[in-house]
């Protein structure tokens, strides 16, 4: 097999989206457009209490006055927000007691994704709450969790069953008016997950949610709220795939994490939404606001593997409010063909002796653009704050781009901040060396990419790490002829 730079590029481009299919399930879809009526309609559809409807309306009114941000290093045709349908739910019975009751076609979809509930149930220690087009259709392992007092359900259910918790915490980390997309999400969020770990409880299993976008032209507005009460621990996994589609699909999720005193939250994401075809047509717009709040001695770790979406705008952040709190961000972002990613994190040091670590690995191929954007901010009262940041970029071919925008703002002289950055390229010499040892080019690229990403892959829970490794290979490799 001959190998030249040119061929490597070709190979990288020929990998088509593997999970491109569309499930034909009847849906109850709202007409396109957004106004107060629609917002109230969504709330009504979900039988929400009045305070929730009011909260949504407040957000909508703020959003109307806001403008879409333009500072990110991405270029795309802005969505027409009046040309999107804001609610869609599988219109068959929304809740099931057992798998037998679930639409067989839906089960088939999960099978294609390799995440059938059957499999998931067998995977020891993983409880799955699957969100398919906005309404949760199945929740498992609820009983085991309930025995520990852990609440893990859809956010809609939480609004009904645990309004006091939702009311107390929703919007406290990401306020309605935080940014354009967060405001939009607050107004129209369809569903999402809710998790509460009581004081001193260590969640015995990895909690996971799979999100899917399924209805043509339906924006997906997920809302996730995770609350770890004092001294508790939870590891939360979120994995996403979506069917391939011509038109751009908007996704504007909000995730709020609250780690109270001495609590720890580990939040891991594998994102593989349709990135658009190799001409750059279609693909998901992923404009996500993720933020966590750490109280005293608390710790939040974000780990993400981003391989999908046409445009990504995402900065999982930590507000280190409590003394001695810790924030971590481990990220792998892969862009290929015409994908654009502007992703990174914000570490806001407010408390004393707060620590943060940022490890970001960007891999760019094709004609894609991959940007790391990060902010490390040390407040005047944050004595002895420490940060370590490392941003590494790996380039394949010479038509892609890697960019790093690290911002550091410190108002306290005792702060210690370190930043390291490297850029490297997969070289023909590396490939030849592998070839000479009997390793073909496709395998060689997988090996090099996995090595490059290892520090981050190691942070993922075991079962996720395997899936993530597979995704990296899918995203970057072509079938070598």
């Amino acid at each position, binding site marked *: 097999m001959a190998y030249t730079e040119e061929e490597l590029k070709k190979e990288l481009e020929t990998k088509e989206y593997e999970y491109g299919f569309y499930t034909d399930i009847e849906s109850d879809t709202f007409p396109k457009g957004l106004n107060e009526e629609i917002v109230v309609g969504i709330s009504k559809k979900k039988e929400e209490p009045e305070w929730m409807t009011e909260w949504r309306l407040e957000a909508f009114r703020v959003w109307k006055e806001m403008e879409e941000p333009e500072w990110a290093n991405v270029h795309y045709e802005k969505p027409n927000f009046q040309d999107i349908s804001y609610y869609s739910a599988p219109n068959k019975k929304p809740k099931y007691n057992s798998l037998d009751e679930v639409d067989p076609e839906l089960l088939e979809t999960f099978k294609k994704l390799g995440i059938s509930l059957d499999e998931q149930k067998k995977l020891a220690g993983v409880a799955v709450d699957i969100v398919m087009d906005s309404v949760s259709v199945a929740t498992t392992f609820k009983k085991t969790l309930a025995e520990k007092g852990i609440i893990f359900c859809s956010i809609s259910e939480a609004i009904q069953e645990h309004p006091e918790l939702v009311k107390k915490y929703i919007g406290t980390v990401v306020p309605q008016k935080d940014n354009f997309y967060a405001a939009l999400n607050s107004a129209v969020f369809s569903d999402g997950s809710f998790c509460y770990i009581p004081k001193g409880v260590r969640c015995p299993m990895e909690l996971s949610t799979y999100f899917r976008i399924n209805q043509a032209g339906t924006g997906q507005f997920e809302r996730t709220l995770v609350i770890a009460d004092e001294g508790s621990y939870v590891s939360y996994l979120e994995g996403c795939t979506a069917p391939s589609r011509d038109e751009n699909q908007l996704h504007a999720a909000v995730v709020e994490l609250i780690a109270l005193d001495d609590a720890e939250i580990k939040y891991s994401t594998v994102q593989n939404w349709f990135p658009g075809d190799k001409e750059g047509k279609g693909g998901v717009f992923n404009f996500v606001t993720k933020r966590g709040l750490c109280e005293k001695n608390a710790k939040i770790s974000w780990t993400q593997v981003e391989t999908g979406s046409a445009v990504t705008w995402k900065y999982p952040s930590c507000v280190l409010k409590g003394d001695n709190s810790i924030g971590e961000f481990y990220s792998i972002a892969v862009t290929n063909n015409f994908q654009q990613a502007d992703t990174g994190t914000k570490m806001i040091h407010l408390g004393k002796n707060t620590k943060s670590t940022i490890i970001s690995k960007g891999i760019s191929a094709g004609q894609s653009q991959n940007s790391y954007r990060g902010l490390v901010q040390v407040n005047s009262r944050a004595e002895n704050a420490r940060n370590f940041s490392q941003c590494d970029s790996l380039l394949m071919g010479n038509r892609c781009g890697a960019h790093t925008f690290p911002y550091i703002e410190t108002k306290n002289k005792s702060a210690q901040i370190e930043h390291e950055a490297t850029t490297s390229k997969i070289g023909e010499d590396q490939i030849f060396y592998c070839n*000479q040892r009997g390793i073909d080019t496709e395998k060689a690229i997988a090996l090099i990419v996995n*090595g490059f990403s290892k520090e981050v892959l190691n942070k993922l829970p075991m079962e996720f790490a395997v899936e993530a490794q597979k995704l990296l290979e899918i995203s970057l490799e072509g079938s070598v002829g």
Partner: protein
Amino acid sequence: MLEIKDLHASIEDKKILKGINLEVNPGEVHAIMGPNGSGKSTLASVIAGKEEFEIKKGSISLDGEDLEELAPEERAHNGIFMSFQYPVEIPGVSVTNFIKTAINESRKARGLEDMPANEMLKLIREKSELLEIDRKFLSRSLNEGFSGGEKKRNEIFQMAMMEPKLAILDETDSGLDIDALRIVANGVNKLRSKDNAIIVITHYQRLLEYIVPDYVHVLHDGKIVKSGSKELALELEEKGYDWLKQEAVL
């Protein structure tokens, strides 16, 4: 085993090899010497199948099979191994993981299952002892931060693990101090057998004191200008390459 006939090779239209003839049989060790720029490393790369080089004329075959159409990894599967003069770094990939992948890919090409973990472990233990390699070394990222000696020792370790039919050692002595040289040479000597062959490419005679060749060839301006026994290496050491250059002109 290896048969090279009237081999001409170029890189970007620059002629480097201008008619090489060489036959290597099982059990033999051949040394290829020559001044800088004579084409020694190019010859190694062409045998291994590096794409940049274009064969303009002539042929290379291994056990009667023409190599020209084979990809580098296929040549490796057929038993060709090259110890690199400048081994590349692959960050995040441990020596163990790399060699495991290499061995299993070659096995796959031969229709075999992956090598069982305990067998692999045994092999690693055995070969790392042979080359006096510290076990901790095996968990380090491939060649990252390795000293010159460590890099070369790692190359020979891989050779020991892969048990090639034909090993080409490209300037394996460069960058080695005398102790490292002795360890590496000892390792190579222990791997010599009646079934495999080794081509040692070197600028200096020093390595050949430890790895004693059956034949010595002198390469100059893309051609083998003189072949002889191991004594030829000593003669070169004494007289330098200039007398051969003059001879070549005559």
